Every structure is written in C-alpha cells, then in structure tokens.
C-alpha cells in the first residue's frame, strides 16, 4: 500500500522540473517580471482608471525618464560600481537645460547638445575618480552627490526667478516635453530606441562584453588585456549622459527648477536596479531587467501616492523593497550553484523483484564461472576506455579511447595499433554500414560517421525538441549505442537527457526514465525521437526479423523490443526483465542468438535504495558526491540469450584480474572480443562450438564479391 502510494507520487509529481527551471538563465528575469505583473494587477484592482490611456501615457513618461537613469545605473552596477550622484546630476543638468533655454535663449538643438555634454562632464568626474584613481564607487559618488547638490542649490538661489519667469513656447521643445507619435510619448520612443541599442551593445558588441567581464572579475579582465580603467570611467560618463537625457525630457515637461528636484532619486533608481535583478557587485544584468525594475518601483511609488500614503510610508516601502531585493539577490548569487546542485538530482521510485541467483552452487543460467580467466589481452596499457569494440571485414579491430580517438589494431596479431580517426569526444557504440562507413556514437557530441579512409563527418547531433521538456533536449547529450537496419535507418540510444557524459552514474541514482531512442535516416538525413522515457537505454541490436530492435535499459535491468516497421510498428515488448545486473551492449552471435554485456551486478543496497526515493534525495542533498551510493560497475559478465528471452550461457571472470569490467563484446571468427569503459585493455576469448567463419557484417550485409 505504502509502496503503491510512493510509486504513484513519484510517477506523477514532476520532481525533476524544479532543478531544471532553476538552472535556466531566464528564471532570474522571470521573477521580477512575475512581481511586476502581481503589482500591476493589484494596483489596477485598487485604483480606478489605473489602466486608462491617459494614466498609462503619464506612467510611460515618468518611466521613460527614470528608465534612462536606470539604464545608466545598470551600466555602472554591471561594471562593478554604483552611482549615487545621479539625483544631483539630474538636478544640475535640468538646471543647465533651463538656464540655457530660458536665460541665455539658446536654440533647442544647442541646448540639447550642451546639456548632454554637461552630463558627460559631471559623469566624467566620477569616472576619473573611480576608474583611474580607483576610489570606492559608493563613497565617491556619495561625495559628488553632495558637491553637485550644493552647486545646484547655489545656482538656483541666483537664477530660479529668471527661469520661473520665462515661458518659452518653442514647438520642438514642447514636443520633447509633451509630444507623442501615434499616442506613444516622445520620451518612450527615445527610451525604446536606446534600450534596443543598449541590449545589442551589452549582448553583441565587444565593449559590452568588456563591461560585463570587468564586473565579473576586474583582475581577470585586466589580465586579459581589457582597458579596465578607461572602460570603467566611460561607464560613469555614459551614466551621466543618460541622466542628462532624462533631465532634458523632465525639463521640457515641467520647465521648473524646484529645490528638491532629484532628491532621493538615487534610492529610487537603485531600488529599481536591484529589484530588476541586476546583481550588486557587477557582472550580471540586462536592459530588460533594468526596465522591469523601473516599472515595478514606479508603479509602487505612484500607487502609494495615489492612495495618499504618508511620505514616511513611501520611504519605508522603498527601503524595505530595496533591502529584501538586495538580500535575495545576494543570497541567490552566492548559493545558486549549490542550490541547483542540491535540487537537481530528483530520484524516483524504482522497484525491482529480488534478482536471480548468481552464486556458485545455486544453479541457474547466471551461475558464476571462471571462463574469462584465460582471455588474451590486446593493447594492454596502450588503450584507455574502449567502451565498444568492432571488427571489420578484414579482421581489423577498432575501439574508442578516452582521448577522443578511434584506435585501429591490425590483424592478425593485433599488436600494431594506429589512430584511425580523431574525433574529440569519447567514442561509445560503433557499427559498420553497408558501404563500410563506421558510425560512432560520441558522448556529448552525437552521431558521427567515419568513412573507410578515416574522414570524420557529423551525421546528426540534434533531434526534435520535445514540447514538455524544460531542459533543451534537442541537442544530444549522451548518444550511447546504435545499430543500422536494412533500410538504412540508424537507431541509437541516448542514455540520458539530464546529465552530461561524466555524470552518467547520477542518472542511475535518479532511476528516472530520462533516456530515449532516436532514429536517424541515412537516406534523408532526418532525425526523430522514436521512443522516450527509458531508464538509461544502452545497447541496441536489430533483431532477426528485420522490423524490430532489441534494446537494453541499463538501470531498468531489462531488455525490450521495439517494432519500427511491420504490423506491430511502434509497440514495445519486454524480452527479459529483472536481470541480475545492469545490461549494456547487445550484439549478434554466430548461432543467431545475442550477446549481452552486464556492466555491473545489482546489489541489495541499491535495490533497496531504489525503492526509497526520499532516502536518495536526502543523500544527494547532504552527502558529498564521492560518498553517494552508486551502482556497482566493477564486476560483470557476458551472457548469451535468445529472442525468447532465455539466458543460454554466461561468462565470468571471478577474480576480475584479466578482464575487470565489460561493457561490450563482439563475436568474430570464433573469438569473442571484450571492451570495457574503465579498462586499459581489450580481451579476446576463444569460443568453443562457434562458427570460425562468422563475420557480423558479412552476415548482415552479405559478403563482398
């Protein structure tokens, strides 16, 4: 009863999604966006006319103005600094624009240019101090905040009357302040243009990458030759310019210089920046985050003003939001990888009946023996990690190596070896097609083809993306083994879509159906997923009827058959289950039966743990990886079975000295060749009663004339 409940809970509750969602980069933008939607919804409910066009246009104007300053702040925060002087720069450039326009009567274009230059100069002071003199950004901009503010106070004491007295009626100036195009305010249009440019600048252009690099690690950026000081200084200049743009629109809209213009603006903008998810300390951030943050803060402050909250409450709300956002951001950035690695492993319920006996004296087909003790060794110490071995028509032996090579041992004595082809990723399963092309599954890369002259070609490295998967499963992460049908379809297994090549045992810990079987059509070059939800599908072999394949599910401890053509097309049938070990590659035997490698034997502890997902999850969270309970892959055997699922014979190396682990085996001219992914050798075992002329590919594709 309890087991049933556990099994139902783990079958239908998607534990694995949390880790996958958290490891997506868009989650960091998604959270502020969700917050924005909540705030917008709440305010539109509590305030009348909140979503009316005039109200929205008004919000857009304010958002545009603060948005410019937000972009500047985002830039300096990404580069690893902070700019508190924006409020004062805003006030000073606002004064500059109005003074030039109202008192000196300059033409509007000249006013615009002069104001931008003014902003650039004010920013340049910060830039020189922080970039070149390497002062602390916070304290420096705090000081320039006071200096600029007092300069502004001194200036308006003298000129506020003459500015207030002037009523310039210049169409272009009025357009800046209140004009719109098709109902979109002028400031919003300019903001959108600059935001799009800013996005391209930060994500596609070299200086933008430099800025992110400096924020990520100033010293590394310096060591890799980035002009750190100049870039930082220019970021503060840009912040000044962007602030002066905001001030221009503000000046044109209101046309006054009150004493409190821009007071506390830095806190609003800073709150927006942190709330949008731009990390304090630098290295992370985007234009979209800045915009979202500005919108949230603006909606909240405007909402509070509309609701007639006291000034103190407004202040507290801003400070509170700022603190919470900063705290969440800092904790998240610090613990992100740890959190993800803790929640990513999502074990599930996997119950197996007790395994058949293998001990000596118990009888049965799996009874241990010592037949493999006398295998000959090929390439001892000269090859590493031959996961699969294969022989061509000329009796040459091929094997993959950990270094990303296909190694060829020459017949007849297999002493001479050479690198047949270099691929780069670790070769796993291999198969020859009718034209003697060698198809290889490469872990982490996909399916590759090696022509007889050693040229490496990519066959496929992607399949159709499934709709319900959070992880991008269109790329092949762990192509494992393959076989080729008579019609030129290549069926290959992808062991897991959730883990990389080096983490494959963790998939066994999870025991979820993360794997799939993919079909590549050599005629059309198209790839599609044939079957998904398999527990680490591994070995694949086309069955004797030519319309089905046999495949092994390593952590399902079973062999299944999938019909890809004929009347039962698409159906899956269990051939054998409850194997005593973890099945790996399957290959043809000379007598029409099949060879199967068991890479490791089941153990009672893991069998029990597989029924206890909670236990495995706690283990993954609390214990370091190297102390986890993992599937045993140290001892295994080779068995022969027939298509009815009956085990005929088994071959063991009891002491594990000559051939410690077995992931694959090939029969060729009376011998069985053994490969193992942890081995430094290839085994060669003389079979009794085997056809001494059996060549797998002559049998499959017919003898060459």
């Amino acid at each position: 009863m309890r087991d049933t409940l556990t099994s139902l809970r783990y079958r239908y509750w998607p534990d694995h999604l949390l880790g996958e969602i958290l490891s997506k980069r868009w989650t960091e933008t998604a959270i502020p966006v969700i917050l924005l939607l909540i705030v917008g919804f709440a305010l539109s409910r509590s305030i009348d006319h909140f979503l009316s066009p005039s109200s929205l246009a008004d919000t857009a104007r304010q958002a545009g103005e603060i948005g410019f300053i937000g972009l500047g702040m985002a830039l300096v925060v990404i580069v690893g600094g902070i700019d508190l002087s924006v409020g004062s720069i805003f006030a000073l450039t606002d004064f500059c624009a109005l003074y030039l326009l109202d008192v000196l009567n300059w033409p509007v274009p000249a006013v615009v240019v002069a104001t931008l230059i003014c902003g650039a100069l004010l920013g340049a002071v910060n830039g020189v101090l922080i970039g070149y003199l390497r002062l602390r950004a916070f304290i420096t901009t705090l000081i320039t905040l006071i200096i600029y503010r007092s300069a502004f106070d001194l200036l308006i004491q003298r000129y506020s009357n003459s500015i207030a007295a002037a009523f310039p009626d210049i169409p272009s100036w009025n357009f800046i302040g209140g004009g719109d195009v098709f109902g979109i305010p002028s400031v919003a249009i300019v903001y959108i243009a600059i935001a799009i440019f800013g996005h391209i600048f930060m994500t596609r252009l070299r200086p933008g990458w430099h800025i992110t690099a400096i924020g990520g690690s100033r010293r590394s950026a310096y060591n890799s030759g980035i002009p750190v000081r100049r870039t930082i200084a220019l970021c503060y200049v840009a912040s000044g310019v962007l602030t002066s743009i905001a001030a221009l629109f503000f000046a044109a809209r209101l046309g006054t210089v009150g004493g409190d213009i821009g007071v506390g603006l830095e806190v609003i903008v800073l709150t927006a920046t942190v709330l949008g998810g731009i990390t304090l300390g630098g290295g992370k951030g985007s234009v979209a985050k800045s915009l979202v943050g500005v919108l949230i803060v603006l909606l909240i402050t405007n909402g509070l003003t509309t609701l007639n909250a006291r000034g103190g409450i407004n202040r507290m709300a801003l400070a509170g939001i700022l603190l919470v956002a900063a705290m969440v951001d800092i904790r998240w950035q610090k613990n992100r990888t740890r959190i993800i690695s803790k929640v990513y492993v999502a074990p599930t319920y996997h119950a197996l009946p007790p395994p058949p006996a293998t001990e000596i004296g118990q009888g049965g087909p799996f009874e241990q023996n010592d037949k493999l003790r006398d295998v000959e060794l090929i390439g001892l110490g000269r090859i590493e990690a031959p996961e699969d071995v294969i022989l061509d028509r000329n009796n040459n032996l091929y094997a993959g190596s950990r270094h990303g090579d296909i190694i060829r041992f020459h017949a007849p004595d297999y002493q001479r070896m050479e690198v047949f082809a270099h691929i780069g990723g670790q070769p796993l399963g291999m198969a020859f097609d009718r034209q003697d092309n060698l198809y290889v599954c490469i872990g982490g890369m996909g399916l590759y083809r090696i022509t007889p002259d050693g040229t490496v070609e990519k066959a496929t490295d992607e399949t159709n993306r499934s709709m319900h998967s959070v992880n991008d499963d269109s790329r092949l992460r762990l192509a494992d083994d393959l076989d080729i049908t008579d019609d030129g379809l290549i069926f290959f297994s992808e062991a897991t879509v959730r883990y990389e090549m080096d983490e494959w045992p963790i998939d066994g810990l999870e025991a979820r159906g993360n794997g799939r079987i993919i079909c590549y059509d050599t005629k059309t070059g198209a790839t599609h997923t044939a079957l998904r939800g398999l527990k680490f599908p591994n070995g694949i072999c086309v069955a004797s009827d030519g319309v089905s394949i046999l495949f092994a599910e390593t952590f399902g401890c079973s062999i299944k058959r999938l019909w890809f053509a004929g009347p039962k097309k698409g159906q899956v049938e269990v051939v054998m289950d409850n194997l005593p070990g973890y099945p790996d590659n399957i290959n043809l035997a000379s007598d029409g039966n099949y060879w199967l490698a068991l890479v490791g034997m089941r153990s009672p502890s893991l069998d029990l743990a597989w029924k206890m997902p909670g236990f495995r999850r706690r283990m993954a969270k609390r214990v370091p990886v190297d102390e986890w309970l993992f599937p045993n892959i140290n001892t295994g055997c080779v068995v022969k079975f027939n298509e009815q699922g009956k085990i005929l014979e088994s071959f063991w190396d009891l002491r594990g000295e000559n051939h410690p682990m077995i992931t694959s085996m090939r029969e060729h001219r009376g011998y069985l060749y053994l490969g193992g992914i942890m081995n430094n050798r290839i085994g060669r075992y003389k079979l009794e009663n085997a056809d001494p002329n059996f060549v797998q590919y002559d049998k499959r594709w017919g003898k060459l004339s």
Partner: protein
Amino acid sequence: MKRLRFNQQEIVFAVFAVLFLAFSIFLRGFLTPENMLTLLQNVAVLGILGLAMAIVVIGRGIDISLIAALAVPPGLVLQMVQNGHSLPAALVTAVLLTIAFGLVNGWLIAYAEVPSLFATLATGLLLAGLGQAALFQLDVVQWSDGMKGFERLGQGTILGIPTSIVMFAIACVVVAFLLRQTRWGAYIYAIGDNPYAARVTGIPSRPIIVLQYVVAALIGCFAGLVMAASVNSMPTRIFNSTLIYDVILVVVLGGIGLSGGRGGVLNVIIGTLLIGTMLNGMTIMDISYAGQNLVKGVVLLLAVITDSFLNPRNEETAQQGDI
C-alpha cells in the same frame, strides 16, 4: 607607508592648529567664550557620532544609518513623554528600539552579507520613514514638562566644563576602553584588518560584526539624547541633512582608514576638532548652507583621495562586489 600614516594625524592636527589660529586672528567673534561654547557643543554631538562611526569603520564597515539612530529613538523619547508616558519607560523603549535597529543592521551585514554601505543606507531610510509615518506627530518633537531635569545632559556645566563636552569625554573613555582593553575590541581590529584571517583563527566574526552595529546605534542614540537635551527639542528632519557626511569626514580626516583595522579614539578627537573649527569658521564667515556643503564635499573628496593613497585597499581581501 607606516611613517606616512602616523604623519597624517600630525598633519591634520597641524592643519587644525593653523586653521584655529587663522580664524582667531582674522575672524571677529571666533575666539569669544560664547562662540567657543557653541563650537564645542556642536562638536560634542559630532564627536560622539564620530566614535560610533569609528567603531564600525575600524571593523571594515560603514554606518550611514547613524543619523536615523540619532533622530528617531531620542525623538521617540520626547514624543512618548509628551504623550504622557514616564521618562524611564520612554528611555527603555528608545533603547530597545535602538538595539533592535542595531541588530537588524548587524544581521543584514554579517549574516545576509549585504554590503554595509548599502544595508545601512536602506535601514536608515526605513527607520526615518517609520518615525515620519508612525511615531512623530510633528517634524520637530518639542520638549515637555515630563522631561524636566533631563536637559542637564546637554546644558550647563560640570566643574566649569560644558556638560556636552563632558559627555563626549565620557563616550571617548568608554569607547577607548572597549576598543583597547577588551577582547572584542581586539576582535574588531582583527576583523577590520583581514576578515577572512579573523574568521579562520576562530574569531566569532559574525556576532562581533552584529555587536559593532548595535554599539554604534546605541552611541548614536546617546548622541541624539545629548543633542535633544542641549536644544530642548528633537528636529527629526535632521535625517535629511548632510550631517552623516560630517561624521564620515571626522573619521576619515582623523586618520581612520576606510579599509579598516586602523585608528582609534584619538583620531576621532583630532578629526572632530578640525571639522568643528572649519564649520564654525564658515558659519561666522556667513557662508550659505549650500556653500558650506560644497566646501565640505570638496574637503571630504580630497580626504578620501588622500586616504586611498595612504591606506590603499587590500586587493587580496577586498571582496568581489565590495563597492
């Protein structure tokens, strides 16, 4: 470098002496008993705040929220007495509020690892907003009859010395004792010098950091009480002023490097004297408030630049994101 650092104290003291001498000679009304009293009284509050800031800066932090701690809890005392509560009850409430505030600051900085500048900027706003929104009826909280006798904390003289100066002296002695004679004072220096090394050697660095901010907030509250007693009211809008920059100025000019682990009470006294003289001289010269701020800002900037040359930031222990 080491020689230079010791020189800074002497330079600042020399500057102070020259400034004082020049003001005495050229400014009419500077060297009068009344003005000296005003100067010292103004300086007293600034100096007490400087002590609070010094504790935090020595521990490689900064506390922007000191002015909130100065304004709000003492303002609360005045408000509560005005509303009819007894003085002891009001004082206890204010101290509890201050301790809670210090704990929040310390927790944010030590445990949540928010940069100290940033955390205290926000918490200061929070506390000031709380006072404005919930605690005070008017921006200036007036003295009431229930406070009778309490004004002696800031007014009058003890043995011929103005009381506020005595309070500053007491605060100096207490802080000097804490920093130099107690174990946790030594811990603060160790943490300021190299936080990682301090943690590795087994110093409970997080609780000590929390303690720093609690003590700083309490000293700030004490300064506020002295200030309120001397002017018989609590102008809570002082939070919006630039007083905090004066405090930073005191600490940095006095020679306590912002990178932490250096300096002591003597530096605060020297810095306080210099700033007090400067501000007082400017007031007598009738420089406008904005003009004074401008001068202060420029001096502070020069001080920070000098500080960055004399006490360069240790790049090895400067945290990524330490802005």
